């Protein structure tokens, strides 16, 4: 056992030793003209490099697996028997050296995930009840424990701040790198960085239950969730390797050419084929993970690339889900003054429309709170009236105006119906019995969304659909603004599911995009469910793709990335098959033997890995900032 571990640990050195022996061997043959030395050194090289391969072959055989190493082992022993020590030496060396290079390059494709997991803190500073502080392993923390975190430290638990304040960089959980202020009572997440400040946190979730641990687990599982192509290749490889053994045997028996038979063993190694598809997926999923895009595995990647119909939930997805002042028209008085007086009145109520107006006043830095208010009265279903700083202010709907005998002019009535046509809610304000302003308040559409949806179409989406529980007027207005192809309004959650099913029955591949708050059934029904914004646990579980930040730029990237990844997988499969065909032709034409065959194999494996590595940097100039920030975070963490 010790011997085996020693071999595993020193395989790199063994590879180097075998390389030196090979060089010495050839030198002694051509420079010193010493054929005996040549034979001995090459035989030694074969054994040195062969031992790790033999060991692997043996272990696999013990659990009844016919591995590539077994093919190589038999070929090498065969070459030994017929005295082709140079072939056996070069084959074993190339096999080990190839593995070494694969390991190095493969590690690169896994780097994105690794940099994520490295952000996970391993130790924490536990604060005991008596105030003493002890450094403990994060695994030893329990729910309810209090930990302290200082500037630059990473937060070891999900929890609530009980003392202190600071700025946290939550890139690890949201993919969005910016400092968020955290005060006592605020929630913080494990894996995020306290960029400034000092806090004490009471743990609500520890270890594997934290959001960050779940993200890591999801991504790790995703990398190993195979695409259809991969599953097929796996099954194929399972029979392929034993088949090569049988074919070699038949070739040997028929041709009576021992050397040809063992050459077939080496050439038959499945090499690039088994590694080509997984390596593309690993690189693609890693690329997404770095940007807060979690794709749950190769098959999700596959299906997503084929999506032609995107179905969106409106509220909270296409719109921000928060009502805000969308438009306004002011008559006679100064716009700021009108808003200031309106806000003063609306501050008296808790109505959502009122809050949108006070928010607008806050945003414009208007001081309405200091204004003197008298005689305020709220009339249900109409609005509010009050005397503010000596002015009589009425804010409400048309019924409130009628009740006060205030008439809209023709121009104002026109504006009113224009605003109503957008599906907005309306607040009309009269100051001193004259209409002073009309405000349109609506759930605001996300900024820049139109372009991002256009980008999605450019990338290959054929049909964009919006489903909403909202009324038709609002729905149509939003759809017109965004260039949505099909709209269905006044829907219940189960109606949305019905539409998704209907689209699928029409033969479309459907992606449903929602915030995951009440649309989990649709997320689960669609070919691809995409949960936007960190969402709920249920949404993360039922969806196929999770966008940690509510951003359509991320959706665009994910869609293009899926297409690129699938294309990359195909390229790799094509390369591998082409190589096998080339080797076969070469064997028949007689210019490929064992050593050269092994060389072509190992080279093709590196080619597919390098091809996949192009995915890691895909779209990098689009979001250089995000990845740089993540890199910085990682650097800070690993420096500790």
């Amino acid at each position, binding site marked *: 056992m010790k011997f085996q571990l020693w071999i595993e640990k020193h395989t790199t050195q063994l590879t180097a030793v075998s390389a030196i022996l090979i060089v010495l061997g050839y030198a002694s043959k051509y420079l010193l003209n010493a054929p005996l030395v040549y034979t001995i050194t090459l035989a030694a090289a074969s054994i040195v490099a062969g031992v790790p391969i033999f060991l692997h072959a043996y272990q696999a055989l013990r*659990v009844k*697996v016919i*591995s590539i190493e077994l093919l190589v082992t038999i070929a090498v022993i065969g070459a030994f028997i017929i005295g082709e020590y140079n072939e056996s030496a070069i084959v074993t060396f190339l096999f080990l050296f190839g593995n070494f290079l694969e*390991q190095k390059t493969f590690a690169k494709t896994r780097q994105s995930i690794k940099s994520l997991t490295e952000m996970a803190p391993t130790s924490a500073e536990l604060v005991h009840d008596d105030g003493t502080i002890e450094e403990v392993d994060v695994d030893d923390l329990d729910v309810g424990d209090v930990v302290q975190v200082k500037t630059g430290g990473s937060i070891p638990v999900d929890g609530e701040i009980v003392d202190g304040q600071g700025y946290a960089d939550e890139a690890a959980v949201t993919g969005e790198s910016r400092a968020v202020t955290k005060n006592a009572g605020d929630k913080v997440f494990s894996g995020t960085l306290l960029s400034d400040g000092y806090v004490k946190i009471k743990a609500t979730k520890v270890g594997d239950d934290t959001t960050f641990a779940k993200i890591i687990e999801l991504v790790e599982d995703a*990398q190993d969730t195979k695409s259809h192509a991969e599953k097929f290749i796996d099954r194929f490889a399972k029979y392929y390797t034993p088949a090569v053994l049988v074919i070699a045997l038949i070739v040997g028996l028929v041709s009576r050419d021992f050397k040809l038979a063992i050459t077939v063993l080496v050439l038959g190694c499945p090499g690039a084929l088994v590694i080509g598809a997984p390596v593309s997926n690993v690189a693609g999923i890693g690329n997404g993970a770095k940007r807060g895009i979690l794709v749950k595995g190769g098959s999700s990647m596959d299906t997503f690339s084929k999506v032609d119909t995107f179905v969106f939930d409106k509220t909270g997805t296409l719109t921000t889900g928060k009502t805000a002042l969308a438009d306004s028209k002011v008559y006679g008085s100064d716009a700021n003054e009108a808003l200031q007086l309106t806000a003063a009145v609306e501050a008296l109520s808790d109505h959502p429309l009122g809050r949108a107006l006070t928010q607008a006043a806050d945003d414009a830095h208007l001081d309405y709170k200091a204004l003197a208010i008298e005689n305020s009265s709220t009339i249900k279903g109409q609005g509010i009236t009050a005397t503010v700083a000596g002015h009589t202010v009425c804010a409400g709907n048309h019924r409130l105006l009628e009740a006060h005998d205030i008439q809209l002019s023709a121009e104002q009535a026109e504006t009113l119906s224009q605003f109503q046509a957008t599906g907005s809610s309306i607040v009309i304000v009269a100051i001193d019995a004259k209409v002073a302003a009309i405000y349109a308040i609506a759930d605001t559409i996300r900024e820049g969304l139109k372009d991002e949806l256009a980008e999605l179409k450019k990338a290959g989406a054929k049909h964009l659909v919006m489903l909403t529980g909202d009324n038709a007027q609002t729905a149509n207005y939003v759809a017109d603004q965004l260039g949505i192809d099909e709209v269905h309004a006044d829907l219940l959650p189960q109606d949305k599911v019905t539409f998704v099913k209907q689209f699928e029955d029409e033969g479309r591949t459907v992606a449903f995009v929602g915030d995951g708050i009440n649309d989990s059934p649709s997320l689960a029904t669609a070919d691809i469910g995409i949960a936007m914004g960190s969402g709920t646990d249920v949404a993360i579980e039922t969806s196929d793709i999770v966008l940690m930040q509510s951003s359509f730029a991320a959706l665009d990237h994910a869609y293009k990335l899926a297409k690129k990844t699938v294309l990359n997988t195909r390229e790799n499969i094509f390369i591998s098959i082409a190589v096998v065909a080339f080797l076969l032709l070469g064997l028949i034409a007689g210019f490929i033997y064992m050593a050269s065959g092994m060389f072509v194999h190992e080279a093709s494996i590196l080619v597919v890995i390098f091809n996949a590595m192009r995915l890691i940097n895909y779209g990098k100039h689009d979001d250089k900032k995000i990845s740089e920030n993540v890199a910085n975070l990682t650097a800070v963490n690993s420096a500790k």
Partner: protein
Amino acid sequence: MSKKITMQLDQLTCPSCLTKIEGAVKQQPGVSNVKVLFNAGKVKADFDDSQTSADQLSDVVTKLGYEVKKVRVKDNE
């Protein structure tokens, strides 16, 4: 009692190591749901602690020639 073990290994490079480890761990008594994460280099499995132990399982993997760097055991709910 049913427990869940997670073993962190060095990085795995050959897809056939995966089959090997999975097969060997699965053959242990009281072990179910063996999952080898190739890219993450992790082995996850459920086991019954009256029939086998975490030490035994990590021993099995070590014997195959893979260094077990870290073992975590959790009770299954």
